């Protein structure tokens, strides 16, 4: 093993949360040693263990369900000591005020009675709720009038049989997921059902769910919190970015479950494209899905021998099995042209004005323009999925590599990392095309397009390396590690430039952001 390799390994090892690192959040710690001789510019940005926050990074923190609970409790206790009321009452007050603590305190100080009444904490709140039997009672829900029926009403005096009341509450809690704002079952009565009533009436599993939902409303009510959208994930993320800042920043956060998503809109990480453009783009793709379907078809014909070729790896360098013609999957041009002029198919050359003169040609030109960007967007999307499949094959490759080359498990981790970086970069590239679609072309956009081209080229090269058969993989370890580091740095450069541009409002878009 070379000393370079040793460097890499020890770095990787010291970073026991490998996943976090690959998510790019803690900065490039693992692979710079490989790279430093070659690229000083990159080194400037990333050499320190605790690098400065980059323009495309935002502060955030993941919170477990317990963290959420204790944060709530903290606020409840605070308000409780200020208002001199029980924590149970303050919880209700805070929820009623959607956790706007200052506002609650202010309004409470002005007139406590009214606040208490409105929050469902009227005078005799302290009396424990209980079931009652009422002579001559008939339930307005089930029409039952059997003598001796257990009944219940809150202070509003809307009385129903206990079993109907229970069924109503349980259906609200368990089926509709409501908790903090369940109203009295009587039509037109806006009284909120308090937690004591709920506890008295519902089954223990519904009560448990109710408490869980109360926790959720806390996160829903707070602007600085958002649930991780990954299925089954119970973490929330705390981030200071507000909705009105989203035209200036794309707040990608990483949950403890390792899911990367946008704090602004909850979708998958879509840097460098701002949320509003993402929304417009997705809508457009949906509206134009028929053409889009056509274009994103996974099979194409070899431009030379016209035999059908199916894409089965993430790399865009295609070789026709039949005639061995090498071409680029994206532009269908011969690959060797890309070899010298590198990657020249990322930019859409606007058609000259003569064609655009008549209206039909204009709409065709605009469709062509859209398809140009969509094609590349969809291609990276598709490639990312293929890369993901490769990811699952990576482990197999690693095991194979271990047995054929005698490398240890740790020594083959570079494959894992290459795969993770590939997927991350495809995701970024994909969104650069939506970004580019709405970008007004001016002097600023050339840098962007160059960055895009550089990243794309590097990604294709890494992707190609990655698809090599295992026996060749072992030999290309150094190359692959270098390439991985390079690709990662290119991504950082692109994101930094776009993020700074957004912040300074350097970009002009063809639509409102």
């Amino acid at each position, binding site marked *: 093993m070379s000393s370079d390799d040793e460097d890499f390994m020890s770095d990787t090892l010291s970073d026991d949360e490998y996943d976090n690192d690959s998510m790019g959040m803690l900065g490039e710690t693992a692979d710079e040693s490989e790279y430093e001789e070659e690229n000083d510019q990159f080194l400037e940005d990333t050499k320190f263990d605790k690098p400065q926050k980059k323009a495309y990074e935002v502060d955030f923190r993941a919170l477990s369900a317990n963290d959420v609970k204790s944060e709530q409790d903290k606020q409840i206790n605070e308000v409780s000591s200020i208002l001199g009321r029980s924590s149970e009452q303050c919880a209700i007050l805070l929820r009623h005020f959607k956790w706007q603590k200052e506002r609650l305190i202010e309004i409470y100080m002005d007139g406590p009675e009214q606040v208490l009444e409105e929050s469902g904490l009227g005078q005799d709140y302290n009396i424990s709720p209980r079931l009652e039997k009422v002579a001559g009672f008939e339930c307005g829900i*089930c029409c039952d009038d059997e003598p001796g029926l257990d009944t219940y009403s809150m202070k509003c005096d809307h009385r129903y049989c206990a079993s109907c009341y229970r069924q109503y509450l349980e259906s609200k809690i368990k089926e*509709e997921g409501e908790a903090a704002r369940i109203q009295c079952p009587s039509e037109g009565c806006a009284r909120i059902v308090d937690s004591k009533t709920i506890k008295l009436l519902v089954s223990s599993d519904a009560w448990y769910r109710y408490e869980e939902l109360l926790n959720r409303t806390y996160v829903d009510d707070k602007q600085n919190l958002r649930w991780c959208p990954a299925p089954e994930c119970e973490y929330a993320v705390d981030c200071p970015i507000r909705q009105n800042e989203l035209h200036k920043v794309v707040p990608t956060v990483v949950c403890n479950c390792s899911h990367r998503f946008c704090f602004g809109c909850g979708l998958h990480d879509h840097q460098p494209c701002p949320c509003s453009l993402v929304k417009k783009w997705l809508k457009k793709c949906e509206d134009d899905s028929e053409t889009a379907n056509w274009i994103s078809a996974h099979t194409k014909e070899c431009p030379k021998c016209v035999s059908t070729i199916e894409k089965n790896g993430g790399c865009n360098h295609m070789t026709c099995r039949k005639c061995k013609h090498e071409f680029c999957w994206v532009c269908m041009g011969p690959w060797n042209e890309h070899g010298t002029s590198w990657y020249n198919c990322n930019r859409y050359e606007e058609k000259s004005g003569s064609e655009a003169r008549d209206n039909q040609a204009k709409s065709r030109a605009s469709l062509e323009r859209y398809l140009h960007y969509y094609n590349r967007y969809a291609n990276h999307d598709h490639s990312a999925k293929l890369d993901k499949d490769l990811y699952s094959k990576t482990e197999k490759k690693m095991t194979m590599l271990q047995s054929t080359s005698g490398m240890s498990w740790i020594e083959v981790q570079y494959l894992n990392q290459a795969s993770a970086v590939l997927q991350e970069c495809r995701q970024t590239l994909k969104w650069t095309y939506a970004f580019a679609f709405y970008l007004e072309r001016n002097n600023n956009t050339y840098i962007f397009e160059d960055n895009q081209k550089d990243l794309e080229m590097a990604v294709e090269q890494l992707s190609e390396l990655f698809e090599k058969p295992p026996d060749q993989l072992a030999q290309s370890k150094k190359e692959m590690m270098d390439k991985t580091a390079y690709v990662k740095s290119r991504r950082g450069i692109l994101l930094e430039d776009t993020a700074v541009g957004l912040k300074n409002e350097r970009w002009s878009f063809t639509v409102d952001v």
Partner: protein
Amino acid sequence: MSGSALKRITREFAEISANPLEGVVIFPIDADMFKWNIELTGPKDSPYEGGRFRLNLTLPETYPFKPPVLSFATKIYHPNVSNDDKGSMCLGILRSDAWKPSCKIVAVLEMARGLLLEPNPEDAVENSIAMEYKNNRANFDRIAREWTRSYAK
């Protein structure tokens, strides 16, 4: 569960039969108490005047904890009724978050009839019809009358 629903539905049916609503006919129920056939008469001074509209009212098994489902079987030009073969309506107390178990079918039928008199374009299912209603009332009235003449016989 459906036992208690049945008791309540039977009671409501008896009440409506005893005090019929103006312009609303409830057809006798054959076997299934959970499916009602209704006919609304287009109110006077509305573009639906003179029309007879057939509606289906379906009560969920969990009635009255969940709202009834109301749909037009007769084609109607109306911002709150979907212009397809379902003719569905979804507004006001027909929404499960607004429905309360103490609400009654009578209220649903009153709402439906009220909507014939005064559509609610702010809560539309058919946005283009709602726009027409708001911005070009004369044309809206004309089409609604035409449809009433052709379909609501």
